[in-house]
């Protein structure tokens, strides 16, 4: 009996250690990221990094201004959200409420396949199909614009938004829906007066997760946005080339001498990106929690 107890204990400790590894890894990663990034601020002031309007890493003296990259990330992400949220929520409503179960069963795996396509394939598709299309339709000098990035990222965020929003709609208690129908409202009135408000926090979580997916995406954006480090105008900057934070790190990390200013600057950009996604995840988590409480009530 005590042998069995010891064995159980041993297994428990082993499992604790494995899950502990995740935390330790995250912790070490943070230390590394922030330490390497902080080393930039020996020679450059934090203010000039955050408010700097030009990113010239290889000129002398080098200029490491975050604003063009941050603005680039924000405009591409904002565009992606504007495009994907209405589409995603509409698709989720259709699949959860309106579609014939047989049709929904056919649609679901297709949405999941969309999530499984590698980002480089999306990027290639964007470069070959979307970029020339935008160029011709809008008669722009180049189709490699923030908008091209937004369209691709919107497409990539769709599966996340659809499946999380669909789950949220599905977990609205049946009694609410039945109550509404029993009071004589139509199916459509029930959907937008009862089900959507009840599922709102779950849908918000879906949107936040979609944003998280979009802001961290690298390969696709790098291939279609032109990577020009200039602060875009809002909203007309949507039709200009932009450079995101992720693309900057991916483009420049390749041959930057280890330990140089430029190297530390890229880590500082990485730290900003980390903080951004961290905040987004926190928000998504808190709206999700709020949603669970509502369900119990």
């Amino acid at each position, binding site marked *: 009996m005590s042998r069995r107890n010891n064995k159980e204990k041993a297994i428990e400790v082993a499992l604790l250690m494995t899950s502990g590894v995740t935390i330790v890894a995250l912790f070490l990663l943070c230390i590394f990221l922030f330490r390497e990034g902080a080393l930039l601020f020996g020679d450059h002031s934090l203010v000039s990094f955050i408010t700097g309007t*030009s990113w*010239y*890493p*290889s*000129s002398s003296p080098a200029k490491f201004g975050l604003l063009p990259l941050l603005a680039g990330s924000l405009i591409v992400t904002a565009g992606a959200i504007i495009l994907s949220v209405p589409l995603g929520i509409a698709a989720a409503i259709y699949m959860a409420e309106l579609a014939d179960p047989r049709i929904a069963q056919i649609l679901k795996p297709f949405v999941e396949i969309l999530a499984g396509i590698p980002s480089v394939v999306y990027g290639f598709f964007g*470069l*070959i199909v979307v*970029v*020339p299309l935008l*160029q011709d339709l809008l008669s722009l*000098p*180049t*189709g*490699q614009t923030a908008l091209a990035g937004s369209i691709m990222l919107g497409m990539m965020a769709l599966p996340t938004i659809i499946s999380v929003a669909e789950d949220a709609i599905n977990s609205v208690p049946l009694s609410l829906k039945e109550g509404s129908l029993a009071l004589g409202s139509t199916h459509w009135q029930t959907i937008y007066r009862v089900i959507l408000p009840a599922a709102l926090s779950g849908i918000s979580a879906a949107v936040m997760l979609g944003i998280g997916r979009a802001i961290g995406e690298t390969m696709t954006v*790098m*291939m279609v946005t*032109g*990577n*020009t*480090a*200039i602060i875009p105008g809002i909203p007309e900057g949507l039709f200009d*080339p932009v*450079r995101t934070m992720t693309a900057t790190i*991916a*483009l*420049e*990390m*390749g*041959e*930057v*001498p280890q330990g140089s200013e430029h190297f530390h600057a890229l880590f500082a950009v990485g730290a900003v990106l980390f903080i951004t996604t961290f905040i987004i995840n926190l928000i998504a988590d808190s709206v999700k929690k709020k949603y669970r409480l509502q369900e119990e009530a």
Partner: protein
Amino acid sequence: MFKRSMLSVTTLLVVMSLALFGAGCVGNNSDDGGEAIMVKGSDTVLPLAQAEAEVFMNENPGKYVSIIGGGSGVGIAALIDGEVDIAMTSRAMKDVEIENAHNNGINPLQHTIAWDGISVIVNPENPISELTFEQIKAIYVGDVSNWNEVGGEDREIVVLSRDSSSGTYEYFKDEVLEGNEFRADALINPSTGSIIQTVMQNKAAIGYAGVAYLGNDVKALAVDAGEGAEEPTAENILSGAYPLARPLYFYTDGEPAGLNLEFIEFISSELGSETVLEVGYFPA
């Protein structure tokens, strides 16, 4: 049940250590089973070195040449650390790097193995077919922004460049821009393939790419460095008439011997030179 799982774990461990041991053997058996060298560096030289290594190993069974990419700087760092036998680069070693190598007891020796031409490309529908060095520089630093300023149609120029980790980027910046910064609104492409793709699709675009990448989908401009416009053809690059040509290097630690020497000599052999041309570069 417990015993059986122990057994499978033990078996797994044994298999894994055997695999590790085996992998170690392959890496180290240059003394008994056959000779092996490792070459690392520039992604520009990579396709050439790979093709040469394949032909060489086919001709010389039992001799192994492994080729690894990563960039010129990466290859040089590996040579300095004594990790590889040959570093392949698309640029000469910098003074700092040579100094570092000497401090590490490595004496880098340069061998030119082939020449690469850099072409300036535009869309085939663009009426422009030649530009001077000054015009290209003016377009790339931002002084000229419309094709009609260099004799073309009234159309805004879309300027394409590589990212800063590319050896071609550095070459272009040194040779054409004479060290000046690229214009801030140039579109930065992560690969040469993406530059070609964009030029194919965009009538207003200008880009640069290694001659090996050229096809019929883009038009390579004749470049005038003051002595008349020259097309990037094999003859002009080999004769030195085309101004944008650069040597590709192998670096060894001191005078090459053994398999290092054999491989370097093979590249300049008749068979090796044929391979150089097949890949799209020009024999040294």
